């Protein structure tokens, strides 16, 4: 059983975590759709795009908890003696979680297309933007797992960060009038989904932010591994 298969098995055997990352947003979409009437259909469409971004934000939580389990597995001595380097571990988790992120986003998108046809337009820019935003959220989750000391801490910190992203990205609540928040990856991808013809600067920022956090996480994890058993 290879590295990625093993992570997948772990993921599938934690149904609550799987439901949180894959099932939450479709549930929200069905719930909100059942509450609204036809007159407010347009506002539902905009809300649905926000919930789509929320499905990406949830990955901070699930990736953080999954990676925390890995840090606590007590096998890092074995990994190091077998010459398994930090990038092998990180990118194994990244690959599996990325697939999970796209599945989650895909399922939610289907519901948006059913409930609010025409609201969601997906082109190459949007796919690239979603990919970069998922990457950012995954590495943010990994970083929280590395920074915290226990699964409980990971749980609380990742929940808080998720809430802050939700609050300041303008996806469900009005965005604060401070410009810096519009550069949050979640705000950028929301703009890309809202305005399919938005310029490539958004993608540039997303790429820069994702690469930066990936690099920081790699360096920190490589350093942290020395203290892991």
């Amino acid at each position, binding site marked *: *059983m*290879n*590295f990625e298969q*093993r992570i997948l*098995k*772990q993921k599938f*055997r*934690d149904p609550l975590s799987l439901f949180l990352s894959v099932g939450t947003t479709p549930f929200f979409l069905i719930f909100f759709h059942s509450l609204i009437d036809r007159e407010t259909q347009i506002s539902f469409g905009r809300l649905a795009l926000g919930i789509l971004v929320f499905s990406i934000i949830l990955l901070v939580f699930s990736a953080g908890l999954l990676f925390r*389990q890995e840090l*606590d*597995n*007590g*096998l890092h*001595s*074995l*990994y*190091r*003696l*077998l010459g*398994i380097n930090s990038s092998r571990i990180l990118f194994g988790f990244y690959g599996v979680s990325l697939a999970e992120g796209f599945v989650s986003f895909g399922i939610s998108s289907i519901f948006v297309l059913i409930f609010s046809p025409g609201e969601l337009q997906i082109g190459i820019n949007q796919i690239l933007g979603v990919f970069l935003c998922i990457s950012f959220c995954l590495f943010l989750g990994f970083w929280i797992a590395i920074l915290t000391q226990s699964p409980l801490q990971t749980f609380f910190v990742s929940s808080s960060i998720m809430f802050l992203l939700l609050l300041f990205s303008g996806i469900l609540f009005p965005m604060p009038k401070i410009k810096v928040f519009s550069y949050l990856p979640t705000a950028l991808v929301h703009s890309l989904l809202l305005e399919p013809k938005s310029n490539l600067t958004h993608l540039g920022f997303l790429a820069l932010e994702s690469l930066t956090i990936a690099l920081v996480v790699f360096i920190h994890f490589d350093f942290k591994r020395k203290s892991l*058993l």
Partner: protein
Amino acid sequence: MGLVLDGRWIFRGLLAKFPDREINVLTGPNGIGKSLLLRILSGLEQPSQGGRLGRFLENPKIGLLNQSFATWQKLTVLETIRSVAHLQKISPNFDLLETFDMTKFLSFRVENLSGGTLQTLRLIMILQDHYDLLLLDEPFTYLDKKRKKILNDLLVSRSKDETLIVTHHFEDDEFVNFSHLYNWEGEEIQDKGKVSDWIQKRSNVRAIHLLPLEFKGKWKEKAMFHITQEEEVICYFENNLIPWEAVPQLSHFSFRNLLWKDMNYPIPQVLK
């Protein structure tokens, strides 16, 4: 070698020599640094002073069993063995699972295993590969007598090709076939010779004395003295075997204050 942790020396000026292709048993009190020494020998920890494996092979293959008790909690025993074998780039060793009578647990998730079964799984994960140097940190912990015997026999057979260093607290007879005993006290690891000699002496015990021991002005729990037919004495203190001739050398034992209390039997000549 020496090691500084949190700003203080855990040990320094330590010289340890272990013969190769033997099972070297290292005993010593809790917290003296046995596990850290194994980590240094494995190369996972850098010593603050000196080096490791002075004249060992250039690029030895090293296996380490530490005292961590986690693994991948959601996987089954079989999946765990396969996953580790994949990392080790070998085929899973199913014979070892049978040897340790673990086949009935193959479909059990790791999170549902008992302490002894989990320890056995962790042993199999390490022992399914072969090494130049195999370091085992208290491998007999949680094992029942049957599995202790199996592990003992397995390690003996592996010592023909591998060098083993095993830390342990002396409690049972599982080291009956082990090669060398080392006792770590203070800043010195003393070679106490062949383990089989000590075991032989233990089987030749004439009397056992439980005696209170004064240490830094406080009464400690009783030390156990085995007196052999030949009037030789083996001392056990805090689960560590201390050969009699080493007792007076132990700086922290106030030997002259060793008191004989509530004794209804004659004090052996050697203890007077």
